[in-house]
């Protein structure tokens, strides 16, 4: 007959947090630990970290100039000198893949930087004010959502002219609706809570309320969504590059590399394999990391 004199309790800290700031850091620490405890998410994070490092140190890592042509050395299979082989202009594919990481990061970064604030703004404004503002904004969002994102991006780039900048713009234009919708949904749940009412009674302007009360509540889901979206951005960018509508040659964008290599693919497989693999790995990494973030930040999800 075992006896238990006290019910088991979770480990309790010896003293509670002393301030709001301390509490917040405590939560961040706990979140980070949980995230790292998830092996898949950690792998994703590591890969992303590697990507950033590779992009920063590209000139050091890449053995050759990515745009230097050397027709005498064209279409050579992978070897000790050219780890990934050479393409139809004799350029070292390994170096091009390395430099391509810069382009990928550039695209992801720019798109996320532009899309998140705009989506947040539109979503929170729509959710907060309701009424016809909401109806109009949501209608616009619906319209953008009524296209598969690649097709819409295609249309924009085609019209604006193929270039890296236009591709980024087009992708941004197709990405903001999901963030806006999410922000709006979050705003709607928060809008009627007591602390918002209290702020209103204190005379806070709508802008202040939105910025300081509502946006922080949306942040975690928006961050998760943005991270998951990054994987999609990479794929869309690669797709545009593949169709020749993104970065123009000789820029070593991974999607464009698979496109130009396609002509020679059947006999020279190395032209398309490695750039595509790079896309897969990076996209997977963002997916895994985003999933892990979601488990940590968004307890609602399964």
């Amino acid at each position, binding site marked *: *007959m075992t*006896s*238990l*004199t*006290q*019910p088991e309790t979770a480990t309790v800290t010896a003293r509670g947090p002393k301030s709001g700031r301390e509490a917040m850091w405590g939560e961040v620490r706990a979140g980070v630990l949980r995230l790292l405890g998830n092996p898949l998410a950690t792998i994703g994070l590591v890969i992303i970290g590697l990507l950033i490092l590779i992009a920063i140190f590209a000139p050091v890592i890449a053995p050759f100039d990515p745009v230097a042509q050397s027709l005498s050395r064209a279409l050579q299979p992978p070897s000790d000198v050219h780890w990934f082989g050479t393409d139809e202009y004799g350029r070292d594919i390994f170096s091009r893949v390395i430099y391509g990481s810069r382009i990928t990061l550039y695209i992801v970064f720019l798109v996320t930087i532009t899309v998140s604030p705009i989506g947040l703004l539109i979503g929170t404004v729509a959710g907060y004010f309701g009424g016809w503002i909401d109806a109009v904004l949501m209608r616009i969002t619906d319209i953008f959502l009524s296209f598969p994102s690649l097709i819409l991006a295609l249309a924009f780039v085609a019209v604006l002219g193929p270039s890296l900048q236009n591709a980024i713009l087009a992708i941004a234009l197709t990405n903001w609706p999901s963030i806006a919708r999410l922000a709006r949904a979050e705003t709607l749940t928060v809008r009627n809570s007591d602390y918002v009412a209290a702020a209103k009674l204190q005379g806070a302007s709508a802008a202040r309320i939105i910025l300081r009360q509502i946006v922080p509540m949306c942040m975690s889901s928006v961050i998760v969504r943005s991270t998951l979206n990054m994987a999609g951005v990479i794929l869309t960018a690669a797709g545009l590059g593949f169709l020749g509508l993104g970065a123009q040659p000789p820029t070593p964008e991974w999607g464009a590399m698979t496109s130009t290599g396609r002509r020679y693919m059947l006999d020279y497989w190395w032209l398309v394999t490695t750039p595509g693999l790079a896309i897969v790995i990076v996209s997977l990494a963002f997916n895994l990391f985003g999933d892990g973030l979601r488990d940590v930040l968004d307890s609602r999800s399964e």
Partner: protein
Amino acid sequence: MSSTPAPNSPPGAPLLSIRKLNVSFGRGPHPVRAVRDVSFAVGQEKVAIVGESGSGKSTVGRSILKLLPRTARIEAEEMRFRDIDILAADENTMLGVRGRRISMILQDPKYSLNPVMTVGEQIAEAYRVHHKASRQEARERALAMLDAVRIRNPEYVFEQYPHQISGGMGQRVMIAAMLIPDPQLLIADEPTSALDVTIRLKVLAILDDLVSARGLGLIFITHDLNLVRSFCDRVIIMYAGRVVEELRAADLDRAQHPYTRGLLASLPMLGQRRERLPVLQRDPAWLAADGG
């Protein structure tokens, strides 16, 4: 506190006997022990398991049918229904036990009935799982069962969907579905808690009649002590996963354990004026196991 020298044994041969049942959830350093060293037996009688939320009473019910999630660990010295060793039984054996020998009524028909099947279908299905029968025959039997639970127009109700019938009717459908395969033991997990007070007694009466008429054993799980006083033969009180007292329903007023006395004292009763309703004072000593 040892239970009073009250009959822990049922009249006649027991249908179900449980000895030292322990159920814990979750792995890792601190599994939650939901049921600790619970022992009791049930014969052809009505036994109530009474306790508050979290006392482990529902878990006991579900572990008898081995319907706990995969994270649960069941350990016991004995878990036996008639000649079937439930503890050692594999899933195949349990498939033959569930419904056919032991059945269970759940709490809220709003959630416990399949929303996209007609209620008649759900009753008929319960029959066809254990007996080979044509759709026609199963339907006849289901209609007869609907009649037995005093539903006035069985043919009409047969075709209804769960969201189209009232709570009381839904619970009667539940009873019908659980009794149609002819089990010997019925577990009722808070069968009236989700019902209107006015309907409760009616449904209980139906349950009472059917259980008596068929000579079933009944395990009635509830938090409502008042309900079981008149309805059940014996009462088992659970607290924090343990059995703290076991006695005849008639002897309730002579309960010994302070928890039971506390429960009884805090029941509001018509005709008894009191300034304040006493609040249960919990003694951590109750969480400790004693002999017995």
